[in-house]
């Protein structure tokens, strides 16, 4: 396991161990922490862990003081992940032995309570109460924005009148705000310079949105059945095709999207129609705009190395057009 993953989970383990609750409740919270540990082992660049540490190191040269913030971000991410699993009926196998009501309880605690307690541990570093209150308030406001974005995502399902701008705004609220929180919380811990804090916040916002759109495209174009098509989700490629196609092709797409909610049989035909509408190319171009904007905000923040290079690596991973080795981007 990567060193930074071990450090963040050690910080979380220490927090859970000292919670003033009965042992059974501690064990309940540890169930999804195990899932998170496996996830982080497979993907050590998981933004909830990596982004706060890198932003802090990019400002101060040291990532260690940001461990409680990275712990808070990871706990919030795991709470949101568990809630998603519950809503999509895709609970990991470790939860199958338990009542789903317990999973809801764990998700709520991880999402709303545990991050606040992790932030409170910054008192041990001598952080003033005013800064802790600001961080705590930041988590609350960001969670509210994420919740509003998730709600829109649910409300848009099955609709045919959602435009690209509305869809992007929903994605920004749902996912851009989450990575903006991870970056901003670390920046607020590292500096009082408002310009640097805003640049890292905007960097996280653009990175989170680009990453989510990539993931949405990946869901549709991965082999086999698309979870988003089954759930009637209105992600950017779908919204683009619905707003671009006219007449018979549009009616055909609408019919196919309805059928795609029943089974995976029509998913390949949906993919073909989206390709014919140029939706993949349009979406890849939008992702590139967010990626370049993220690069511009990072460059404006003048990050220290080597953290700056690692942050740039996170941006390059959120592209459908380039890989890290190929990029012609000179803005970072």
């Amino acid at each position, binding site marked *: 396991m990567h060193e930074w993953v071990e450090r963040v989970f050690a910080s979380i383990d220490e927090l859970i161990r000292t919670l003033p609750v009965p042992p059974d409740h501690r064990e309940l919270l540890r169930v999804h922490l195990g899932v998170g540990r496996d*996830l982080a082992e497979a*993907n050590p660049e998981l933004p909830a862990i990596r982004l706060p540490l890198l932003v802090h190191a990019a400002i101060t040269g040291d990532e260690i003081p940001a461990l409680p913030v990275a712990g808070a971000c990871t706990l919030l991410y795991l709470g949101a992940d568990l809630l998603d699993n519950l809503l999509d009926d895709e609970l990991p196998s470790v939860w199958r032995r338990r009542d789903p009501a317990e999973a809801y309880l764990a998700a709520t605690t991880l999402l709303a309570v545990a991050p606040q307690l992790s932030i409170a541990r910054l008192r041990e570093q001598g952080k003033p109460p005013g800064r802790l209150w600001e961080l705590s308030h*930041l988590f609350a*406001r*960001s969670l509210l*924005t994420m919740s509003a974005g998730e709600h829109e995502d649910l409300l848009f399902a099955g609709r045919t009148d959602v*435009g*690209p*701008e509305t869809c*992007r705004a929903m994605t*920004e*609220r749902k996912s*851009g*705000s989450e990575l*903006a929180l991870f970056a*901003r919380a670390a920046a607020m811990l590292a500096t009082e310079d408002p310009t640097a804090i805003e640049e890292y*916040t*905007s960097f996280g*916002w*653009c990175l989170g*949105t680009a*990453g989510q759109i*990539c*993931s949405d*495209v*990946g*869901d*549709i*174009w*991965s082999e086999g059945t698309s979870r988003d098509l089954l759930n009637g989700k209105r992600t950017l490629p779908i919204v*683009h095709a619905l*707003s*671009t196609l006219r007449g018979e092709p549009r009616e055909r797409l609408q019919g196919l999207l309805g059928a795609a909610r029943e089974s995976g049989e029509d998913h390949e035909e949906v993919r073909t129609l989206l*390709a014919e509408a*140029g939706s*993949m*190319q*349009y979406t*890849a*171009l*939008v992702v*590139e*705009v*967010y*990626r*370049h*904007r993220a690069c*511009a905000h990072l460059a404006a923040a003048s990050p220290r190395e080597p953290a700056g290079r690692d942050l740039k690596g996170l941006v390059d*991973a*959120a*592209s*459908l*057009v*380039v*890989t890290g080795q*190929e*990029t*012609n*981007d000179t*803005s970072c």
Partner: protein
Amino acid sequence: MYVEISIRDEVLANLVELARTDREFMRKARADLEGALHEYGYELTADELAAVREFHGQTSAMSDAEVNRVLAERASSAAMRGA
């Protein structure tokens, strides 16, 4: 918390449509991207231009079907690594 990001979706969608359907535009864009954009009336922001340049540089030699195949492959790998 909200960060204002302005992206001109209609401009980008029109440009993608133009690139996919107008061979003359693509011929000119391969020779001089910015000149072709200017000639067809596209005044892009710095971010939009950088994105178009990157996209054009990676895909201009490919057919429509090849572009879709390459993008689909990258999207699948992005989904697998949890981008």
